[in-house]
């Protein structure tokens, strides 16, 4: 009985993982389960295959070392977030106060579903305690493409993916899950200012228009250049 419940919960977590919606806790549980059971690994592979086929992608051999690669990725994430500071040393002039709010790893998982402003912080905001060595966000997975929804929302940068799991937090303000007791830093993402949105739109449009003249991308850059355009801009 309890075994059945456990299995159900794992399956649910697995679906969540497919949607990029899994919390850190769930992820750990999944990793443990997949290490313990070959069956479970096979199920994951089937999900992936099915999803790929649904997306009509070229289907290729499935790497069965799922648990290994995720574990490795998480470790890398840790080391990246520590070492990434090297790249930003030039910014040190303004950086002994830390502009970055660290994205906890749990938050990283939660961010995956959002195509949005990730981690942009106004420099003038009040500094808070920051875990040492964690001020830079590791290269988080960008919101990927698995769930395709037609979007009736006005286009912009701040479009939460309308999955069931994000509905509860699906306001325009993005507040990632904060698990009390997890010991992780809470992530505070502020509502982007209209100035910021305008700026981002503008630079993305100008970049795309230039990109149309470089490389052989066909009309893709034009699609990008037009995407964020506001009516009457």
């Amino acid at each position, binding site marked *: 009985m309890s075994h059945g419940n456990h299995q159900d919960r794992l399956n649910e977590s697995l679906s969540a993982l497919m949607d990029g919606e899994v919390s850190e806790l769930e992820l750990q549980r999944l990793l443990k389960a997949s290490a313990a059971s070959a069956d479970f690994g096979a199920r994951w592979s089937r999900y992936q295959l*099915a999803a790929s086929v649904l997306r009509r992608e070229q289907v290729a*051999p499935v790497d069965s070392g799922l648990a290994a690669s995720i574990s*490795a990725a998480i470790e890398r994430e840790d080391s990246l977030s520590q070492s990434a500071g090297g790249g930003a040393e030039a910014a040190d002039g303004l950086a002994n106060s830390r502009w970055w709010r660290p994205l906890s790893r749990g938050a990283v998982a939660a961010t995956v579903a959002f195509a949005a402003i990730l981690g942009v912080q106004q420099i003038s905001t009040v500094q808070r305690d920051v875990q040492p060595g964690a001020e830079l966000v590791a290269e988080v997975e960008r919101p990927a493409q698995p769930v*395709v929804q037609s979007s009736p929302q006005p286009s912009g940068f701040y479009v939460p993916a309308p999955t069931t799991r994000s509905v509860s937090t699906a306001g325009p303000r993005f507040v990632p899950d904060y698990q009390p007791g997890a010991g992780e830093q809470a992530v505070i993402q502020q509502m982007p200012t209209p100035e910021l949105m305008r700026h981002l739109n503008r630079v993305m449009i100008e970049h795309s228009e*230039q990109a149309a003249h470089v490389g*052989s991308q066909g009309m893709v850059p034009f699609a990008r250049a037009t995407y964020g*355009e506001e009516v009457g801009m």
Partner: protein
Amino acid sequence: MREPGNERSHLGSTIRRANNLLLALFLLAPAAYAQQLGGGSPSADTPVVDGTAVDSSAVDSTAVDNFVVENPPADNAIADHPIADSAIAGSASVEVEQWLGKLARAVTELEYRGLVTFEHAGILETLQVVHAVRDGEQVERVRYLSGDPRELISHGSGKNCERTSGPIARTGLWSRVGQQEVQRAYQFILRGEERIADRDTVVIEARPRDRHRLGLVVNLDRETGLPLKTMLVGAQGRVLERYQFVQLDLSPVQDSDLQPQSADARRMDNNNPCSTSQSRWQLSWVPDGFKPVSVKPLSDGDMLVFSDGLSVFTVFVQRLGPELNFKGRAIRGATVAYMDRIEVDGVAYTVTVVGEIPDATAQRVASAVTVEG
């Protein structure tokens, strides 16, 4: 190495035939998985399958090895895959070069019209695109059919920007030299065939050789070389953006098709698209293979455009005032905008690096902005 290639193409075609039967999918999937276990070497990693692929953001030597190890599909591939069949290493690369040359010509010279889906981060938008050549110049019209009405008409993008890399006239995929340059940054792999918008296409993957660019999977129309599907692929084989034709019409474009359909369509004229102004801003670091293609003055700063022949990023350095003192990144599909700040002689400038490049690369580029001298 050869076995998985066969399995893959075989599997691909099997599933393509069956894919209108949802039920068949779920029956096939476990069987396919069993096949993998039986025949596959795990080192034949697959950047296109979400989540399961070897993580190419791992910059360690193993990831690099994987790139090198990957060979074109086997020569004993099954008969209905002529592309894969002939892919002995040498001829495959010649073939890729031919396809890339065809692509470069198609995107500039062909007249076409079509309906396109454009997806990123779970959003699907539909567009109408028209591409024509008038007086030797390209005229393009893009109109969104979903969401807010947005329309763009671009004139005169006939001239492509040159990378300032010595004697190379037209870099990128137009020339052999340009192609060889691009191939130093990416490994091109023929991936077989797929049907898109009711047309046969050849699938080519451009796999980055380092972590500073995104991967690209592009389906070229077998007849014309026009890209009918373009996917940008990030680390872990995640598809960040997909642009795909639903319908393609290759008949000559009428002038009426180039007229705006909405009153507030934006017009863009590109008489001098690749300006080479001087800028006081410089980059102390760019990823290998990226070279400046354009330096353009803005009303409030400068923009510097860089390309490796396939990917493009732009660095903006602007005086924007304190309300734009941000640091961090924003992402839309495959495009990242990383914002930073630089202070010179007591004046704060906003640095924004925008491009279809990995986040960490954008961040590093932003921190490499310096002032001349």
